[in-house]
């Protein structure tokens, strides 16, 4: 019989390491995909994801069960990933929960020419890979909200808890994140960017 996360946490608190191993196994893919979207490369993302679980283990006594264990993990994952991104791929000023300063309303500056559907111009797998990379190329906060909402299927409430931001702010950032992703896709499909 599968134990719930909360039951496994209770056991892990008492020093039951196999119980904690079950928690790691259960959440490793989702945590890794979140760190991957924010950090941007597999090696750093895997290191960050491992760090997330080690920190979670050390802080188990502080998990009160107010939120889901997964949400609590994502909060740690976002913090660890932002630190990792700050060290590796991102500019310091954009590696935070704040939004990019030069981002106005997040919408495309002009309506792009969409006469050709990008999905028709690329093989599907290649297109998916490119979109995955473009999500990682967004400012970290945008990568985080898109990953949590569209990939991890978290609710606004859960994202709000994980990022410790008001729900209204989460919605606004998700809106801008989609627009920023759409802009990146448009630019990446331009002939110059393909050469």
């Amino acid at each position, binding site marked *: 019989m599968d134990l719930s996360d909360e039951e496994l946490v209770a056991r892990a608190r008492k020093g039951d*390491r196999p119980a904690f191993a079950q928690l790691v196994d259960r959440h490793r893919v989702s945590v*890794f995909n979140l760190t991957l979207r924010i950090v941007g490369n597999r090696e750093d993302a895997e290191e960050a994801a491992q760090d997330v679980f*080690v920190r979670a283990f050390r802080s188990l006594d502080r998990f009160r069960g107010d939120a889901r264990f997964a949400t609590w993990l994502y909060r740690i994952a976002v913090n660890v990933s932002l630190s990792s991104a700050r060290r590796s791929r991102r500019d310091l000023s954009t590696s935070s929960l704040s939004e990019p300063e030069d981002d106005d309303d997040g919408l495309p500056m002009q*309506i792009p020419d*969409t006469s050709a559907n990008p999905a028709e111009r690329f093989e599907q797998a290649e297109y998916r890979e490119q979109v995955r990379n473009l999500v990682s190329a967004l400012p970290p906060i945008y990568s985080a909200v898109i990953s949590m*909402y569209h990939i991890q299927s978290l609710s606004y409430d859960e994202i709000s808890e994980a990022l410790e931001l008001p729900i209204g702010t989460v919605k606004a950032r998700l809106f801008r994140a*989609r627009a920023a992703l759409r802009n990146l896709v448009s630019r990446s499909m331009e002939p110059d960017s393909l050469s």
Partner: protein
Amino acid sequence: MNCESTQRLMYEAVDRTLAPDERRLVDTHLTGCERCRAEMAVLDALIETVETTPPAEPSDAFLANVMASLPAPEPSPRFAPSVVFPRVAFAATLVAAALIWLYREVFAELVGNFLPVQAVIGPVATVIGDLQAYVQTQVAAVAESLPEPISTSLDWGSLLLVVTTLAVGYVLVRTAETLGVGNPDIQAGRRY
């Protein structure tokens, strides 16, 4: 509704959180605007691609690496692995004190000559001499039924030895409790 307003609402429409009346406005515009219709299709396809892209898998060594990185478990107590240790020690102290008292003549032969007990106790013993005689009588009455070599006389040196034994036992028990000897909760950093 113009193209710019429609585009703004499109980004909310993709997660189906748009209010019904706003959704109708968008749909009405899309019906008559091929450009926005195409943009909506692209946006829908983009979000669908994001949502349906298979998750990346961490390496096979991920779980083992995490478990190897966890802090080492606390060493288990080497001595008296039981939370009842302080109580057991206290009981042992009482038994020891009782034995010392009952066999105080034997103990007096062993250690009594080295204790300057009488010099310290003498003046007090004079004052409470009557009390001593009374207690001695009572003890003798009780001890008549006990086998030799149980002592029947009241000996202040032995009494002091018993009191000292109790005091040392108390200090040891309190120290054991403070250090958490034998108490896994305290060993793990938790307090009562």
